């Protein structure tokens, strides 16, 4: 592992900001291909940083075992350490979002310079993976997202997205503000770009983190960056990289077409469902979940469930849960007497894909997204 300084910025009243990445495999000139993996661009992306740090840990073990192939891998767990260290989501001084500054401008404002410094290093990668977060506070079914900029070869992208083994891959039509995100600009520069959404953002959820780490390792193996025959055996006392919860917080596996039933997936650590795919071995199958056959969907196929009332948010349905049309997803309780003032119901049969996550909820907003079956 080589530590690489990507960007350095003198700052007022604090230590100099240094963005570092961890490089594995051959240097660019000798590499057959390269992968850049970017973690926290925002200061609240703790789960995303945690996933990247675990990827670094696994890659280091693979490197020690001689199991890395001729693909350069650069992992940047935290870009925005300056915000993370002081519990800010965006840039401390002007509240700007680094992920709205790409491709960056090296003579511009501070966050434009950071974006430019980072992008300069990662724009020539063959593959780009960003651990992303959503702008609404909530929990997601883990998935991979591809922005359809119109310049990508969709068949090729689907083949690559499939390597992760996520239950879902979403194709997103870019909105105007998307044109300044890392994912969009990677694509403009010809990088095969993927945004990975874990379940949560500003706290660590170990099970989904493990799952996403596994997904990344499967992708790296799928593109030939890892030589599985040389990979060390998984530790005997798995789960290894992080302490998994005794009982999964929320079932993650998809239902419906898949033969993994809700009951099985929610059955705790012991009863791991058999992976759906055979013939692929990562050597790191410590997670009880996946890989899955990836279902490809357009993002606009998700059905929004909106509130009309505001109050305490009492969730009923879990992420990944299969629901029938009309099933209760959550109730909104009066903040005065806890009476139910609205019941949010599934508008279609499908899988709970996104769920608002807070004690309170406003009226006229999105509480759930359901993936129709």
């Amino acid at each position, binding site marked *: 592992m080589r530590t690489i300084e990507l960007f350095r910025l003198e700052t007022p009243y604090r230590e100099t900001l240094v963005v570092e990445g961890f490089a594995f495999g051959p240097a660019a000139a000798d590499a057959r291909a390269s992968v850049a993996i970017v973690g926290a661009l925002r200061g609240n992306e703790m789960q995303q940083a945690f996933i990247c740090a675990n990827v670094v840990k696994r890659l280091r073990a693979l490197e020690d075992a001689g199991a890395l192939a001729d693909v350069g891998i650069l992992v940047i767990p935290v870009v925005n350490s300056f915000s993370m260290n002081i519990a800010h989501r965006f840039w401390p001084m002007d509240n700007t979002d680094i992920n*709205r500054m790409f491709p960056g401008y090296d*003579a511009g404002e501070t966050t434009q310079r950071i974006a430019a410094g980072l992008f300069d290093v990662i724009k020539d990668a063959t593959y780009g993976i960003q651990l992303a977060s959503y702008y609404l506070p909530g929990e997601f079914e883990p998935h991979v997202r591809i922005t359809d900029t119109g310049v990508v070869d969709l068949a090729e992208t689907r083949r690559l997205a499939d390597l992760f083994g996520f239950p879902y891959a979403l194709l997103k039509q870019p909105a105007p503000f998307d044109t300044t995100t890392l994912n969009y600009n990677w694509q403009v520069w010809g990088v095969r770009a993927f945004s990975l959404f874990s379940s949560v953002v500003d706290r660590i959820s170990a099970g989904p983190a493990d799952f996403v780490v596994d997904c990344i390792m499967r992708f790296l193996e799928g593109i030939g960056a890892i030589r599985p025959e040389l990979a060390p055996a998984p530790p005997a006392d798995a789960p290894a990289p992080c302490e998994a919860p005794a009982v999964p917080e929320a079932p993650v596996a998809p239902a419906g077409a898949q033969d993994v039933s809700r009951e099985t997936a929610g059955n705790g650590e012991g009863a791991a469902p058999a992976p759906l795919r055979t013939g692929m071995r990562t050597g790191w199958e410590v997670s009880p979940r996946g890989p899955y056959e990836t279902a490809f969907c357009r993002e606009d196929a998700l059905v929004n469930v909106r509130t009309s009332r505001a*109050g305490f948010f009492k969730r009923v349905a879990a992420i990944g849960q299969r629901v029938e049309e009309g099933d209760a997803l959550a109730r909104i309780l009066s903040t005065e007497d806890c009476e139910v003032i609205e019941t949010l119901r599934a508008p279609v049969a499908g899988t709970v894909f996104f769920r608002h996550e807070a004690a309170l909820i406003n009226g*006229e907003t999105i509480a759930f997204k359901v993936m129709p079956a």
Partner: protein
Amino acid sequence: MIETVFSAELPVREHLLVQKNRIIGADLAAALDAAADDDAPAAPGPRGNVSRETFAREEERLAPDAGSGAHAAPALNDAQRALLDAAPRLAVVTGIHGDELEGQYVAFELARRLNEHRDQVHGIVDIYPAINPLGINAIERGVPGYDLDLNRIFPGDADGPLTEALAAAVVADIAGAAACVDIHASNIFLREMPQIRINELSADELLPLAPLLNIDFVWVHASATVLQSTLAYALNALGTRTLVVETGVGMRITPSEVMRLTEGMLCLAAHLGIWSGPFEEHGAPLISADQAVSFLNAGAAGVFLPKAAHGRRVGKGELIGVIVDPLTGEVRERVTCPASGLLFTLREYPVVYPGSLLARVLSE
């Protein structure tokens, strides 16, 4: 009359309300009153009438359902609706950014002037003082609880989250106006001379209107993709001519400039045939493209102390300010002017990072 453009319930006994002040000229109000006696109303509920008293009763009737403070638009019949649709309308919008207050004065002063002389108003002036009311209340630029710049999500989505539904409601309400002015102050970091910023894509439609607003200069800028998510871009794309004004500084009101701007609103209203009262005209503005604007960014971190005066001409090589280090007592950088011209932007907030914008100069 006060109307509600968007309402969403908040968890504890409150609504987020985007409201506007609809000022209707005396002649149009009389025509609407006359039309009230026409055919049966198209909308359910009692027959509408636009006189003040009728609205007050209507509001009372609607109040329990609409939530406290909400003002529902009165029920109108087809003839009245047709009259309102045909009337020329000017929309004056401000408060998208909660830390920009210059427009608050314009909203107040414009409403005061128009209310005093309804007989000189011909048509409709809609004044929207606070598109982001929670942000203004909390001194937050973005929308509290969403941590998001409202002027980056237009045209919004009625089926989206609260912020996007709000944006969509605002666009729907303004669309179709003869013209719209979106008043921004600068942010808390920079002081600006009164100026209008026009996307080059809309220059043909907007350049004839811009000089009416009593600003010092018009900046025709290249079409950056990020600006596609602004209110102005969304409205211009719908064919509603929308001008963006930037003036003063964040979190403050600069009275001389906003008074001038208020006169500019009246001047524009007169041009549109909506105002026949008096107004003051300022001299013609400078009109410039990107090439003539020089940016001065900080090269060092520290505290910026301006040495040049804002809004004045500066010569090439002239000292604009210094960046100093309070810990060591050293001057870290001397910032000099790359070209002579008008110092139309100057840093107001002292603490700077490398890259922080310090000044903009319009070359002569």
